[in-house]
């Protein structure tokens, strides 16, 4: 709707999905979690099962916009809008979610890594509709953290970070995933940081070095609120705090 108000989008046809049933379902199974496209932020906030089944998602949703927006904003809407500073696209990318789309050629699952192409641009075809997002199962002992900084509560983040990993019996990180948003023209995975730290113990010096390695290759956004240097420093700080918090948080 803001896109229409700003005259940034002038679609010939607008379709309201209000009367389409079945898209507001939250399914939690052994394979993971499936969120229907019409699931609202409010539904995620109020579903106590999700705090256990997808704690990183639950934490991220608390940062989305304002109360009144969380009462109406949806999973499908956020994915399709693909704002580079939005929380859900970052979670989808970091957690390797799959986006389920339906069109005249049937249904297809698009990996998040192939879904977000540019600011407000996705791999969705003009005649396709998002029906759900699938997240794989979350091990109970998994460590995680979600951090973002915005100038006021509810504003879009100047930068944000999502981190999760498992610890093996030797205290080494496994399945490390590191995501960042608000810093580039789409959410990004810091694959170099992940590669440098996977299988390592989360020692502060090694983490700091790996964070630098991951952020050095990013072409940072620059705007009136934060120039590129500031954003880089901010992201590094948020990532450092995220690793700290993930380590300190006792698994549920």
């Amino acid at each position, binding site marked *: 709707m803001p896109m229409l108000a700003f005259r940034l989008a002038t679609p010939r046809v607008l379709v309201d999905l209000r009367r389409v049933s079945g898209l507001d379902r939250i399914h939690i199974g052994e394979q993971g979690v499936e969120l229907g496209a019409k699931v609202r932020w409010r539904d995620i906030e109020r579903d106590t099962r999700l705090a256990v089944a997808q704690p990183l998602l639950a934490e991220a949703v608390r940062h989305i916009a304002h109360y*009144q927006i969380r009462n109406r904003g949806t999973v499908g809407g956020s994915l399709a809008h693909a704002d580079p500073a939005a929380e859900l696209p970052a979670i989808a990318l970091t957690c390797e979610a799959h986006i389920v789309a339906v069109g005249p050629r049937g249904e297809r699952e698009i990996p998040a890594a192939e879904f977000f192409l540019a600011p407000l641009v996705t791999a969705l075809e003009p005649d396709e509709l998002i029906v759900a997002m699938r997240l794989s199962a979350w091990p109970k002992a998994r460590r995680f953290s979600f951090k973002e900084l915005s100038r006021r509560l509810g504003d879009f983040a100047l930068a944000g970070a999502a981190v999760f990993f498992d610890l093996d019996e030797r205290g080494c990180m496994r399945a490390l995933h590191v995501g960042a948003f608000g810093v580039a023209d789409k959410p990004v995975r810091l694959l170099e940081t992940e590669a440098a730290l996977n299988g390592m113990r989360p020692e502060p010096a090694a983490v700091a070095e790996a964070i630098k390695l991951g952020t050095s290759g990013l072409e940072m956004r620059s705007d009136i609120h934060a120039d590129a240097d500031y954003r880089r420093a901010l992201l590094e700080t948020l990532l450092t705090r995220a690793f700290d918090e993930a380590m300190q948080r006792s698994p549920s």
Partner: protein
Amino acid sequence: MTSITPIINGVAVTVEVPDRVTLADTLRDKLRLTGTHVACEHGVCGACTVIVDGLAVRSCLMLAVQADGAAITTVEGLSKNGKLSALQDAFRRHHALQCGFCTSGILTTMHALLLEEPDAGEHRIREVLSGNLCRCTGYIPIVEAVLEARAAYAQAESGA
């Protein structure tokens, strides 16, 4: 044009609306319910907040056609028989408004919050208030008024 019939402040109203007119503009221009204010028109300031099917939402981010059949409460629906609601009365006594432009959006938002969470603490109230911009009060008297009004909502909930 599409004919819609929302239930506005308890009364079913049928109105013809162009498909791309917002609920906010319809309330103000068609139905003359000008208590709903329009400022930023892109969902940031909160001035246009109304309650749709129990939830506080931005009426500038909804098209009127999406409100067909919905139960809508605007700021005009908060008082009964010319008597201020407990929340409105608390706002008056705490000087929780100055120019008043943001006030209707804050009242509707806080009304919806307290109906659902009559025990909302100061932190929760401030978090929810972050979706309503007020340039006059500095928010402190607003928070005090809402905290005080909680008792009336808790009483209503317990059926007393």
